[in-house]
């Protein structure tokens, strides 16, 4: 099973995940959710450390534009995810290990679908070789 680390704004991703769990959903094995108070506090380092600690993929989630309580936290999250992707690309690792999505608290069905897709993807190395 692929290891997936989800780092997300607790006000959107966290709420979506919790309402998903209220319907009986359990995070699949190997999937970890790490809440942040806002997308603004996402650090490039969080993403890299997640990969370093063995995650196959990282999913970064923040709010849509105009829905962030701190106004530009979503922009920060998106920029920093892009920065992490750029670093990986520069290092020759490919950026597909990192996925960025915007989410809102009432998108639990979508969140479940994304998790399902990501954990069932081929490992990135295998994709590279193919």
């Amino acid at each position, binding site marked *: 099973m692929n290891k997936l680390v989800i780092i997300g704004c607790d006000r959107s991703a966290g709420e979506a995940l919790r309402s998903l769990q209220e319907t009986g959903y359990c995070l699949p094995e190997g999937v970890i959710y790490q809440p942040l108070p806002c997308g603004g506090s996402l650090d490039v380092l969080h993403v*890299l450390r997640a*990969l370093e600690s063995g995650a196959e993929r990282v999913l970064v989630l923040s709010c849509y534009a105009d829905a962030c309580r701190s106004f530009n936290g979503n922009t920060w999250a998106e920029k920093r995810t892009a920065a992490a992707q750029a670093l990986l690309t520069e290092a020759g*690792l490919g950026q597909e290990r990192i996925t960025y999505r915007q989410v809102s608290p009432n998108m639990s069905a979508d969140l479940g679908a994304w998790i399902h897709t990501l954990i069932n993807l081929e490992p990135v190395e295998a994709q590279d070789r193919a």
Partner: protein
Amino acid sequence: MIIAERKPIQEITASLVPYKNVLMVGCNTCVAVCLAGGAKEVSVLSAVLRLALRENQPELTIAERCVERQCEAEMNAELATEIGSYDAVLSTACGVGVQTLAEQFPETVVLPALNTKFMGRPEELGVWSERCAGCGNCVLDRFGGICPVTRCSKNLLNGPCGGSANGRCEVDPVNIPCAWQLIYDRLARLGQLERLTAIEPAKDWSTSRHGGPRRVIRKDVKL
């Protein structure tokens, strides 16, 4: 302050090929302020390097340290006890810091992780621009506080040239304002436009890089 920028990762990884046990040393002064080589950037870069080299150099280890001001031997002294146990040091300081470490620890390989760019200031969050070329003979008094040596692409002291259009420099109209337009506007504001009627004589460049590496000695401070 000194503005620097990270080298391409491929260049850094190439420089690390011969080594197995590397110490990264950051600097929490200028390069930290310009977000290139402080404690946080050390962590980010070392994480990327470990990921990048996981397959090709799996035995490579990278440790992280950060000193307050790498151009000061005293502040690097804390590294002395352990530095010998590493094959190489990768420094995220400016060129001065890198050389300080190399001088201070003659047995240790010291590699730069940054390109030192210029002396400048932050214009806004994430944007830095050059303000001083360190010519050693400041002319700012005659040019309304705007340095033609640094900010005019042609270093003209009797400008502007014909490449100034709409206040922008022909070298890069989008990003570079014409220094001579800035000088004119500022002098006009100060009511000192008549200064521009004087011909600026040829500058004495002997205080600049042309006389070899420079030193400053304060006899009153030096014992």
